[in-house]
Structures are given as structure tokens and as C-alpha cells.
């Protein structure tokens, strides 16, 4: 009896993974529009393709392509099936390893749908979110490396020197460009005449994107999330963001970064999100990525990050305790 649970669960997890594999193969997911070319997106209140809803951008595709895959942008259906089997075997091995320990049942996360295999994610045959033959963020230019090295380091001296994420300013997933995040990787799109608003659950900020044709802000006005302007190209919403500050770099970017995002409703259940990042002060050339978003039920839960950040005080007092212990040793 003791052995039964993890093994059963591992088998179930394996079945779940394996069952989803044929779907990748049939849909050819990962290539925009290929799943159902004849499908036409419903219209929103503004007459454009309707992007509104609650979506998850959770994915099992890594941002950068594993180096050994070279220029290979997509797995074949056979490779997908082999990968799924490998993941299932790994899950089974982990379950078997946990068996016999205190955590055997309690932390068998497969059992209660807590693993990646059971979270809703769009199927994709991509080998990396970053598209193209490189599949990786280009190396930083020498000037950008120097700039990065000169940035102030976070320390435990004060809350002011802790990382922005810890201080509840924002998390790096928020972008733009918007990236998947470890948990609650959800966002809501609301669309109306002249504006599209996007709220990301982590960590609560709302992007308000004018689509009424107004020009960008003057270049001397710099904002944490930049200055976004949207327009429609057919059924695709195109958002161009400029006017970033130099204080929240995205993978080493400068305030000269420009991000162009494209949102295309590709089926009743999905939106294809593509972006291209350009920053001549940071990278030799632009780079692009594609993320599939899946519709999820319900709205977002509020994540008012700073309503009770006891953690910050505890972190600082923990550092003081460490310092006192180190001083006592001397």
C-alpha cells in the first residue's frame, strides 16, 4: 500500500504528458495560425479582433535554446514524444526516490496537480521562446557590459538597496516584453475604443496602452514601463514601447530599448504573443521571441505586494544578526 500512491501518480503524470504529445503533433503549434488557419477571431467592443480575457503565459519552453540544439527551432513529433517520456520517467524516478521518506506522500506534488505537467500551458514544439537560428539573447556589446558592471549592487544595508522585486516595485516578468513567471503566471486583457489595458497578476501593475494614434511622449519623459502606443495591423494588435528608464534594465538593456509586441488571437483558446527587442546601445542586432497564451477560467487574484511586507524587516534584521555573529567570532 505504501508504495502504491507515488507509482500510480507517476503513471498518471506520464499518461498526462504522453496524451498531450499527439496534440502538439497535430496542431503544429508554435507556428502562428497553423493550428486553424480558417478560424476568424470574434470582434471586441472596439470592432477589432477580441483579445479580452484572462490568459496564462506559463510555458515549459525555455527562454533560450539549449546550446546543443544549434539552429534547430522546432522539435519533431517523435522528439516531443521522446521528451515527454523522459519527463515522465524523471517524475517516476523522483516519486520512487521520495518513497520511504517523510515526504513520500505529503510532497508528492503530482498527486494534487501541483506539477508543471498539470498546469495549463499552450502546447508548443519550440525549442526556445527566442526565435530564429540563434535562439538566444545576443551577447552584450562591450559598452553594455561596462554599463552593467557599473550598476549599483544590491546590499543588505537598507531597504533602499534591496532589489526592486523584493521591494514590490515590480518584477522582471512584467516587461515589456512580458515574460512567463514562476507562479501565478496570468494576465488579463481589457480592450475598448482607444485603449487596451493589460494587468499581470504578478505583481499587479496595469499597462494602459493608447490605440488612438496619439504620438509617443517627448523623449525626455522616461517611465518604469516605458511609453506604449498600440495600433492594429489587420487582426493583430501591435504595441511599440519606448521611453524606458535606465533603472530597470531588461537583460542588460539601456534606456534606448524599443520593444515591439504583437498580439494575435489564434483560436478561441489562445493568443500568440510575439515581441522584438531592439537596443543598439546593448545588442548588435534585434532579437525576437514568441509565447503562446492560453485562456484560463475566472479573473485574476489581487496581488497587492506591499500590503504587509514583514519580510523586508525580517531580511534586514537577519542580516544584522549575521553581522553580529560574524563580529563575535573575531
Amino acid at each position, binding site marked *: *500500500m*505504501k508504495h502504491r500512491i507515488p507509482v500510480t501518480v507517476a503513471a498518471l503524470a506520464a499518461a498526462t504528458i504522453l496524451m498531450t504529445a499527439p496534440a502538439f503533433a497535430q496542431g503544429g503549434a508554435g507556428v502562428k495560425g497553423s493550428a486553424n488557419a480558417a478560424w476568424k477571431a470574434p470582434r471586441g467592443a472596439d470592432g477589432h479582433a477580441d483579445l479580452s480575457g484572462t490568459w496564462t503565459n506559463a510555458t515549459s519552453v525555455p527562454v533560450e535554446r539549449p546550446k546543443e540544439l544549434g539552429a534547430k527551432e522546432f522539435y519533431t513529433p517523435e522528439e516531443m514524444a521522446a521528451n515527454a517520456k523522459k519527463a515522465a520517467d524523471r517524475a517516476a524516478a523522483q516519486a520512487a526516490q521520495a518513497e520511504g521518506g517523510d515526504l513520500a506522500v505529503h510532497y508528492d506534488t503530482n498527486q494534487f496537480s501541483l506539477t508543471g505537467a498539470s498546469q495549463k500551458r499552450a502546447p508548443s514544439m519550440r525549442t526556445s521562446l527566442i526565435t530564429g537560428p540563434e535562439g538566444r539573447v545576443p551577447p552584450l556589446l562591450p559598452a553594455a557590459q561596462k554599463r552593467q558592471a557599473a550598476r549599483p549592487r544590491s546590499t543588505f544595508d537598507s531597504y533602499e538597496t534591496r532589489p526592486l*522585486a523584493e521591494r514590490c516595485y515590480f518584477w522582471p516578468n512584467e516587461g515589456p516584453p512580458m515574460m512567463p513567471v*514562476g507562479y501565478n503566471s496570468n494576465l488579463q486583457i481589457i480592450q475598448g475604443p482607444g485603449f487596451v489595458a493589460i494587468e499581470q497578476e504578478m505583481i499587479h501593475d496595469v499597462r494602459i496602452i493608447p490605440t488612438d494614434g496619439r504620438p509617443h511622449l517627448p523623449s525626455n519623459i522616461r517611465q518604469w514601463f516605458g511609453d506604449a502606443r498600440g495600433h492594429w495591423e489587420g487582426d493583430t494588435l501591435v504595441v511599440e514601447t519606448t521611453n524606458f528608464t535606465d533603472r530597470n534594465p531588461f537583460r542588460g538593456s539601456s534606456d534606448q530599448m524599443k520593444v515591439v509586441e504583437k498580439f494575435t488571437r489564434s483560436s478561441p483558446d489562445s493568443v500568440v504573443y510575439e515581441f522584438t527587442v531592439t537596443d543598439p546601445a546593448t545588442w548588435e542586432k534585434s532579437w525576437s521571441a514568441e509565447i503562446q497564451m492560453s485562456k484560463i477560467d475566472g479573473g485574476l487574484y489581487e496581488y497587492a505586494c506591499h500590503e504587509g511586507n514583514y519580510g523586508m524587516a525580517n531580511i534586514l534584521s537577519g542580516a*544584522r544578526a549575521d553581522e553580529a555573529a560574524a563580529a563575535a567570532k573575531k
Partner: protein
Amino acid sequence: MKKLAILAVGTALFLSAVPLWAHHAFAAEFDAKKPVKLRGTVTRFEMINPHSWLHIDVKGPDGKTTEWMVEGGSPNALFRRGININTVPVGTEILVDGYQAKDGANRAVGSDLTFPDGKRLFMGSSSPDSPDANRSK
């Protein structure tokens, strides 16, 4: 044989290869070398961001009561796993397995909770980072 009547809930912290605890590192706030086992009565459950906090009164061997605060996962992560404010009502007797704050205060990160009937609840804390293997059986 292990109890099968288990209420195991957790957060989405496990869900991907992205760093488990993006908000802050376990080691910045808690000490993996100070595991604690606290038996107490729930006096308050704060479902606040970025972390929930469970307050318990712990009675020592001398009969004296001390107040402890136990950190758990973010409310939105807990909600999605079926935990709400009524899951751990005030007055509930509870056993907390966790790790104490580095500064030695009566604060801990909750690894998991055990109810009097043996049901267990995973609080979605940052403690999966810490050594679990040697915990008592």
C-alpha cells in the same frame, strides 16, 4: 503505513524551472540550521501579500505562552490551491514544522502544518529550499 487522509495543498511555487521564490530568498530571512516544531493555537491568519502569516500561541513546558508568527505563501497562490481564511480558523490547534528567523525572533517560515486529526496542510512557504530530508518521521 502513512495516513492517506491527507490534505496536501501547495502553491504554484513548484510549477516551473523559474526560480522558486522570486520575492525573496529563504536564506535571507530564515535559518535552515534552526528547524522548529511548534504546537500552538491559531490566534490570527493574515492573508496578506507578499506572504501570508499565521499567528499562533505556543505553550511551553513551563506553561508560559509565547506568540509566534509563521510565514506562508502568497494569498493568490494559496487561493488557487484551495486554502482560504476559513481553512485555519482561530482556535485551531496546530503543529507547525518550519524554520526560525535568522535573528532568533519568534518568527518562522512554515514548512507544513498538522491538524489534530492528522491531516496536513502545506503552506506554500519558501522552505522547500531548505533541507527536508532529515525531518522527523
